[in-house]
């Protein structure tokens, strides 16, 4: 990445907050900003950014996804890393965006340039070798592999590496790589199947008696949070940014 500070960290990054974080989990955004600023990195959030277009793309509305991203391309231009706090949006920007403009060389080139700068939050934190988070997560922490980070971006290491810096006791969640049943529109088109998958996920966290269930995608969080409160489960759900920022810091969920 360009504009790097002497210690191999970029001076600033662009934060792609994602629509779900913006509207449902603003704390995740605050925790992310806290972490980045703690690393002495200036965070830029262009307010015109809304959504990566994944909901459209995943439901067969490629044209709509293209239009949505097209209106945001100019906001993503530049040469600083683009941080996504979510594997699925990261995958959309990194892997799908460059394929959306086959007939428009100008947009295609822009898209490719943007895609090359996108990086998921935990990957970024590992890349800049951030080790001091200044907080600890007491109790038992388990990590749920969010599907798009795991198989879309091929990443299962960095979330665990990051968590190991703060978690007092991190254990592997049984079947951690099994989908939680969210899948975007899937969870409302096939609610019973989705809920059965969700139940399996929550049960496996309960079986190991986890204190914290950590996910790296606001999509999974939306789903898992709904299931946890319906079951009145005592498991507490965190986004990886919140887990790393730690208790009592910006972005820590109310009531935890």
């Amino acid at each position, binding site marked *: 990445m*360009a504009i790097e500070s002497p210690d191999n960290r970029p001076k*600033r990054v662009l934060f792609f*907050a994602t629509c779900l974080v*913006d509207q*449902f*989990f*603003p704390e995740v955004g*605050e925790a992310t*900003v806290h972490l980045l600023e703690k690393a002495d990195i*200036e965070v*830029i*959030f262009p*307010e*015109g*950014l*809304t*959504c990566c277009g994944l*909901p459209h793309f*995943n*439901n*067969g509305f490629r044209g*709509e*996804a293209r*239009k949505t991203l097209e209106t945001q391309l100019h906001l993503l*231009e*530049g*040469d600083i890393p683009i941080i996504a706090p979510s594997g699925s949006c990261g*995958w959309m920007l*990194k*892997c*799908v965006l*460059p394929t959306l403009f086959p007939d428009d060389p100008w947009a295609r080139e822009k898209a*490719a*340039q943007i*895609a*090359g700068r996108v990086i998921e939050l935990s990957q970024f934190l590992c890349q800049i070798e951030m080790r001091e988070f200044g907080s600890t997560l007491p109790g038992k922490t388990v990590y749920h*592999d969010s599907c798009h980070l*795991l*198989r*879309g971006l*091929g990443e299962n290491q960095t979330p665990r590496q990051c968590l190991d810096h703060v978690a007092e006791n991190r254990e592997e969640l049984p079947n951690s790589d*099994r*989908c939680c049943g969210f899948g*975007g529109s*899937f*969870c*409302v088109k*096939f*609610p019973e*199947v989705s*809920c*059965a*998958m969700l*139940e*399996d996920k929550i049960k496996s966290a309960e079986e190991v008696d986890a204190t914290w269930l950590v996910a790296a995608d606001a999509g999974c969080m*939306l789903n898992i949070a*709904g*299931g946890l*409160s*319906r079951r009145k489960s005592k498991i507490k759900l965190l986004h990886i940014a919140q887990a790393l920022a730690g208790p009592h810091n910006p972005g820590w969920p109310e009531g935890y």
Partner: protein
Amino acid sequence: MSSPFNQRANSALVNIPLQDALQAATGKFANQRAHAFESTAAPLALRAKAREIRRKTFDEIDKHLETLFTNLQNLGVHVHSAPDADSAKRIVLEIARKHNVETVVKSKSMASEEIHLNQALEAAGITPYETDLGEWILQLANETPSHLVAPAIHKTLKQVQDLFRAKVDPNAGSDPQELTSIAREKLRTEFLRAGMGISGVNFAVAESGTLCLVTNEGNGRLVTTLPKVHVAIMGFEKVVPTLRDTLTLLSVLPRSATGQKLTSYFTMLTGPRRENEADGPDEVHLLLLDGGRSRHLGTPFQEAFHCIRCGACQNACPVFQTVGGHTYDSVYGGPIGSILSPMLRGLEVSGELPAASSLCGACMDACPVFVDIPRMLLEMREARTVKKNNALMERFSFRMLGMVMRKPFVWETGFKLGSVFSRFLNAKVAAWLPGPLGAWAQGRELPRIAKKSFRTRWREKKRRGVDSSSAANGVSQADSPDAIIEKTHHALELAHGLSHGHIDCPDGPLPEINVPDTVVRFATEFEAVANPALQPSSIDDIREYVLNMAAKWKEYPVAISDGLPVEVAGWLMEEGFDVISPSIDGDNRDAIARCGIGITGCDWAIAETGSIVLRSGPGHPRLHSLLPETHLALVPANNILPHISSLGPELESIFKQEEGHSASCVNIITGPSRSADIALTLIKGVHGPRDVFAIIVPDVLIARSQ
């Protein structure tokens, strides 16, 4: 009104025995698959190679099919092609009528399921018998398969027992072994008298005209050996260019399907029985079924043809694990079925299936040839949108959502309103609502839209601090074109979507596991799949082994192939055994069927898998290693090859030779006949031998005995 998939899913979800069976089966298979690749030198490279073979095949599919047809015709195989199910059925019936066929034995064939062949046969007064244990159970129950490799996984032991009592034997017990024996006896009779055998094809090797079957029970061998007429049915996707490619695919198929290094039988059929051979069909037909396939060549869905039907994606899929195969209401269920079904039957019939996936990607991760199922699910969803095959409401909502997303102001205002609205809505109320909110609330509390969005909080924070946002972002230094290309390339590589990243196909030969001593390795592996391999140090030892083994079958004759490394027939006759020798002038299937033990040589053995390779030929009937309950192979130590791939040149020299020298059949035999179709219990001796023994004969003893 819940959709058809949902209705079927809901009944599957409350079917407790089904849930238990699914959990046990898919979990077991997935687990075994994960370990099966540990026995290869470079699992990912092997899979990448297999993918490359599949990809390249479809680059020149026309050429390969032409080669296949030419070679088949030169071998005397009748080749038919059927554009659709009706013509396929007509062709099969014509062949059956010509030979006055009354009963047909079938081994598993997805293509014949596709065209509902059994109903057509029955309507024409011909009785078909499914002979795969699982398929036979389903035929008795009048049900369809629910899994690619374990068709009857949805049936519990109790259900099978009840079925057998009602339809086969009122006294059937509850032991899977006993139930299997009942099936063996009943079906053996049918095998021996059937006029025609119908099978599927796993691989059709273009360069040699070889039709390959991958089976465990032995029914595939019986179906293609005993009846005078053999009809194989397949879609064009089964074609594989070369014998060596086939061996590579064989290295990944059973591992991905059942976790075995090799299945009990890999059968390579190359034309009808040769004149000097004792058994095998006199007439062989290959029926190529199009059935909606060719229109997808050259489209984004062509990749679905790379599938080698291992079922690994089904076992890995959390949706399949939850609802089972019948919920997909198609011959092909699970992830690959959600592509294949709309491809073959149209979006109008199966358009809902591509949506019934959370796109988690576990399927592609598990797939031995990395079929990019998630990509095709997306393309299929898009095709549906473009064709306006999905609900009007869905199209409308997504268009609206798109408009909102493109107007940050509307976006923000909309959510502010939503936030207020959502304060008044709880899940109990929402659960009664139609549409997505109601669906969400079925098992989940509603998410709360934040009172203050992130962008609002951001603005407040900025107001508190120094505003440094937009200006800084303007400092853009465009990357050089080269850098851009490099970055793009990286991005597209990742688009493959695998938890283990992108894998390149290695150039040159694949790495193989180290086999320092073929005899030692063979003995170890053979013991793992069958029995301890016997290692004599003298001719007397061999005599003792053979006589001891035969003694267990005192009352029965012994079938002995010609040209064994050590002649054993004399010893047995001295001891008063009735010896059945190969016959070339008549069918002695009944005599062989009465034998308790069949003794064969071994043309090659494979150390890494403990397999015995037998080629048919004069004095080497296929049935000696198939009909008796025990099979004993005399394995010359010199014939043990280290790897499956070492067999490549040998197969080429058999099958690529001029007419007259070649063999009609080569079998790779790995352990006894087996099945786990009844309640996942492993049963040996389903249709073929229950026991396989090997005597490794050192070179010195062979020389001495001759």
